[in-house]
């Protein structure tokens, strides 16, 4: 029925691109599973995957089987979901705030999510991944609300939003430190600080069942609103004049951004620069229209974080570098490039 409403030729074209995107994503995930500090040959990986996916019954060393299925596959899937989710959050925030520097990290959403997650962890409110994610969601929503109010009080322009975000980030980072200093013992504190830098070491299958649905739902919500996001190019008034229910779209999309950011932060800590740099890379490749930008940014974000995770595992033998450190090492120069290009254009 849906296909019947589409003009001829559109469906095959979109379908081909979607298929190509999924193929690239699967290859990246496979790459993330094959690469690691324990080198595993392709056929072992393939056999282990086949054993678990459709009981193929290949003879595989149980240790290799364990590394592949219980450790690397969930880790790579969560990395892909986080990369896509954070990149989408950046795309949406940059469109709604109309500032090239908007991303969940700079606007304080990640900091708020961290505060919420740490508060739940230390004070033992709620339990398990859902409890921590819930805390992160409340923290992220609070942070975004506070930053929006401050930006509005300061005049409400795109620049004010980013400045208010910096203030909000500082406030919530201070709150996080305060909670740690007040309540955590030395062992807890070390663990939390390591987690805050971004870390996929502890990721297992239950985390996949949280991260993947949230990333997919967020992706679909963004894609559904692609025309609305385009309409914000000339500002909220112009979007309204083009028939966009501005307030409703803002609430739905900010809700999606908050949910994605909070989920990803609660699972892997606060990872910077993905939401900032990836949308610009995607715009450079496919232009500013969201119909192409959203799938491209999600795909590049997923691949980028899979690659960053592989690098974080292999950079120092026998030791895992926090993935936030890797994304910052790559992202900071990328950010510098955006600034310089912005200057040339202006």
């Amino acid at each position, binding site marked *: 029925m*849906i296909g019947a*409403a*589409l*003009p001829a030729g*559109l469906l095959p074209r979109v379908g081909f691109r979607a298929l190509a995107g999924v193929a690239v994503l699967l290859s990246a995930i496979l790459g993330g599973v094959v690469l690691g500090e324990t080198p595993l040959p392709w056929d072992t990986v393939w056999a282990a995957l086949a054993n678990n996916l459709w009981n193929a019954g290949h003879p595989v060393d149980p240790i290799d089987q364990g590394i592949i299925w219980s450790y690397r596959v969930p880790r790579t899937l969560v990395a892909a979901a986080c990369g896509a989710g954070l990149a989408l959050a950046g795309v949406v925030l940059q469109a709604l705030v*109309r500032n*090239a520097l908007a991303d969940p990290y700079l606007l304080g959403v990640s900091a708020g999510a961290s505060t919420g997650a740490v508060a739940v962890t230390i004070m033992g409110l709620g339990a398990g991944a859902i409890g921590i994610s819930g805390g992160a969601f409340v923290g992220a929503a609070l942070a975004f609300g506070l930053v929006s109010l401050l930006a509005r009080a300061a005049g409400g322009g795109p620049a004010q939003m980013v400045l208010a975000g910096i203030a909000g980030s500082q406030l919530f980072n201070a709150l996080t430190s305060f909670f740690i200093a007040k309540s955590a013992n030395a062992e807890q504190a070390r663990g939390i600080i390591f987690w805050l830098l971004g870390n996929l070491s502890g990721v297992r299958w239950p985390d996949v069942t949280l991260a993947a649905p949230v990333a997919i739902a967020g992706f679909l919500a963004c*894609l*559904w609103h692609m*025309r*609305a996001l*385009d*309409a914000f*190019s*000339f*500002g909220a*008034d*112009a979007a*309204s*004049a*083009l*028939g*966009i*229910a*501005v307030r409703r779209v803002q609430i739905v999309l900010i809700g999606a951004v908050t949910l994605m950011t909070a989920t990803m932060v609660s699972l892997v800590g606060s990872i910077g620069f993905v939401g900032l740099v990836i949308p610009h890379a995607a*715009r450079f490749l496919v*232009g*500013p*229209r969201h119909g192409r930008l959203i799938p491209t940014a999600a795909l590049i974000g997923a691949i980028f974080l899979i690659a960053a995770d592989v690098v974080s595992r292999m950079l120092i033998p026998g030791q895992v570098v926090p993935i936030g450190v890797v994304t910052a090492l790559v992202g900071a120069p990328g950010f510098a490039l955006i600034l310089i290009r912005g200057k040339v*254009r202006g």
Partner: protein
Amino acid sequence: MKIAARNLGWTVRGRRIVGEVSLDIAAGETFGLIGPNGSGKSTLLRLLAGIAPRPVGEVWFDDMPLRRLPRREVARRLAFVEQQAETAEALSVRDTVELGRTPWLSPLAPFGPHDAAICAEALAAVGMEDMTERAWTTLSGGERQRVHIARALAQRPRIMLLDEPTNHLDIHHQLSLLRLISTLPVTVVIALHDLNQAMGCDRLAVMEGGRLAACGPPSEVLTHERLAAIFRVGARTLTDPTDGARQFRFHCLEDHP
């Protein structure tokens, strides 16, 4: 489509910007809004477009109150060309004009050949058909204005609101734009600064201090007394000997009595 305002007003932080404006604009009419800087022309247009928050009074499209219509239905009836709408996105001329189709599209009814034809027609109407791939940032002020008007045309509205659309345009494009607007089969509400251009409207409304000071045919509205009182200019009327058309020639009145 008829558009009417009933006691329309807008207040920000206790200060009234526009108040008690009632208007009836007939279908197909070209209705001019004139008035000095800060007299409330732009705010009145925003109120008529339904994008000013928390308005006082009502706007009616034929027999339908604007506030009962979803934004999408409003945008199918009415297109608004703001005075300055800018973007930092690397949009092309084509991208910008295609935004005009937004109220007619949905995820289940995507952009198709019919929409592309409407956009091409809109671009041709403003003489931008050879510049479809140009980036927004490389356009001059006048070209941006024409692209915005093409975007509004692509909305296929029955009412068009234009806020000083001849700003930034060279004289050729000013005249061709005004001619285009007068030939459109839609209701047009247009804010203008050039009183000689305003003479071409079917009717004029004069704004002063947020209120409607006068409304009627240009020859009745633009009296020498009113020009002196509201615009603080003296005027002499010149007549073009070739066709008998009247033109104003203005001079400054002494500002301090």
